[in-house]
């Protein structure tokens, strides 16, 4: 999606020349990032969602689990800004609570997949004898039918893990693990490509010439230089993980109803679409806006981190 920067050729052509002399790499990245209107809008929206989800409960102080059957299926009111569900639980509180879990799943699964992907990518790019096997492994994972396998794994291991670790932690760990372990392939490929080009550079040769150990070369010289592709896949990874988690929850194989995520709230709302369509619209909107904003941020980051596009 590098097209998005092409939309602002004029902006890229007038770099802030006046500030030359005291520019840092991250300053440049930030300057380029700010030029991307979609990216800025996305970043603000995403921060707003994160803020709402974490600070919101202290402003909207309603228990998301409290039942009140007398006030079931209500519409918008001052007391319940998003209405109530079929058991009279406040929808806004539930969406805020669900958002915390959805975001937590997204970020944790992304970290796991990022870790696996970076390790595989760096090893495949740096260690010659591991390259073949690791690339085969990546191809193999890319050929797996992921959604069916995710569903099957969760169906099979859900009860065992719940019994072992409790209903909430068990399902959380299971879902984060299966999403993370099945979404590292793109990161690995991108990182390997970056490592291959970086390790041929002269400064790596220089480091080797002064006797730097291999491990030190990787951590000190290779990793910082492949950080940009890793950051971009990290951003997009959150979006994918949130979508995957909601899809699993939507198929009834994700989080339980008393410990809901946005996907689960949507799934529960589908049966009440005729009575109360807002039960579907709010969680769906939350997922869509979050993913959209993250995708825009990822887009802008990719352009900002690309040295060919960054302010000359």
């Amino acid at each position, binding site marked *: 999606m590098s097209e998005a920067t092409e939309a602002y050729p004029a902006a890229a052509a007038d770099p802030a020349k006046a500030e030359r002399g005291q520019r840092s790499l991250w300053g440049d990245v930030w300057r380029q990032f700010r030029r991307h209107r979609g990216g800025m809008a996305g970043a603000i929206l995403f921060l707003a969602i994160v803020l709402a989800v974490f600070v919101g409960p202290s402003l909207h102080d309603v228990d998301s689990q409290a039942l009140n059957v007398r006030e079931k299926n209500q519409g918008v009111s001052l007391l319940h800004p998003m209405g109530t569900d079929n058991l009279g639980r406040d929808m806004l509180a539930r969406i805020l609570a669900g958002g915390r879990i959805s975001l937590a799943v997204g970020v944790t699964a992304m970290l796991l997949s990022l870790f696996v992907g970076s390790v595989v990518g760096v090893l495949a790019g740096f260690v010659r004898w591991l390259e073949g096997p690791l690339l085969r492994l990546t191809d193999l994972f890319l050929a*797996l039918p992921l959604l069916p396998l995710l569903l099957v794994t969760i*169906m099979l291991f859900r009860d065992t893990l719940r019994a072992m670790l409790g209903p909430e932690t068990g399902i959380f760990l299971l879902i984060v693990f299966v999403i993370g372990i099945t979404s590292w392939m793109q990161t690995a490929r991108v990182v390997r490509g970056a490592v291959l080009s970086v390790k041929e550079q002269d400064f790596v040769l220089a480091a080797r010439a002064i006797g730097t150990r291999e491990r030190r070369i990787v951590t000190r010289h290779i990793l910082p230089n492949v950080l940009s592709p890793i950051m971009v896949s990290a951003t997009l990874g959150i979006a994918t993980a949130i979508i995957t988690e909601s899809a699993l929850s939507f198929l009834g194989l994700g989080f339980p109803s008393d410990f809901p995520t946005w996907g689960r709230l949507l799934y529960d709302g589908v049966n009440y679409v005729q009575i109360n369509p807002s039960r579907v619209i709010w969680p769906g909107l939350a997922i869509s806006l979050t993913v*959209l904003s993250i995708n825009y941020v990822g*887009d802008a980051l990719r352009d900002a981190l690309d040295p060919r596009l960054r302010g000359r």
Partner: protein
Amino acid sequence: MLNYTLRRLAFAVPTLLVISFIIFALLDLAPNDPTGNLPLTIPPEVREEIRRSLGLGEAFPIRYLKWLQQFMVNEPLNLIERILGIEIGNSAERLRVRSWVTRSPVVDLVVERLPQTLLVVGMGYVAGILIALPIGVVSAYRQYSWFDQIGTFVSMVGFSVPTFFTGVLLIVIFSVHLGWFPSIYDTMHQVTHLPSFWVQVRQMVLPVAVLGLYNAAQLSRFVRASMLDNLGQDYVRTARAKGMRERVVLFIHVLRNSLVPVVTVIALGIPTVFSGAIITEQIFRVNGLGQLLITAIQGADIPLVQTLTFIFAVLIVFFNLIADLLYGMLDPRIRYE
């Protein structure tokens, strides 16, 4: 080319074997018991008998090899027999992969569900391609125009909004409020005359729209990027300099060259027609392959799940191969050594 094809095929076979092993092992090592739902009054020796009748009596490697033989040899033979109407060997004695729940051969279930999936989901994919092509072409040709800006935004929204939300949203708007289209797909419906054909069209509109929009959002970006790559090339200027009409330049020269990567992307996406439609089929209650998988998973029908998942894997590997070969065939610059 032939050499390359053979090498790719030779690599596809071990890949599939490993995937089949992963799927089989994952399902088999999982902690669950097919007789767990049966009444507790059944004595243990009868329970053991039931387990043996389900094919669980033997050790894991033997079961795996047997399943492999059933899937790779027996079922294809049965299919050939059915299509050609001939009998190869002793077909009545041949072991088949059977569902634990319905006790019927798994392949029969798949064949039963395949038409619905192909019709609805395949149509969604075709619709997506048909929408994506013109949008991609126009946004590349008029880069930075308002059409392009809107197109970029819409496609960003299109693949950010998950299909389970678009689907439900369309149901809320078009079935609940406006009442134009049914929200549930009726598989029993038979097209016999014109009015019933309309009923069929109306019930297909929503699922096809959901899938079409989602696919179009992803594909149109590809078409646009590929068109932009080609529009800047020297041969385009040459064609214009020769005095060719703009239409000829655009559609004969640029579009044809731009379609090379697009075709491979389309081929790569075909497996998702089958497996990615799980969600759409669930929303609109289409009883296709995806729905079969979900019911099988919920009913812990292990053989059915194993076979379906493996079929999806076979499709992915197969279409990856097709995409690779197509790319080599369509683009003469690519030479496989």
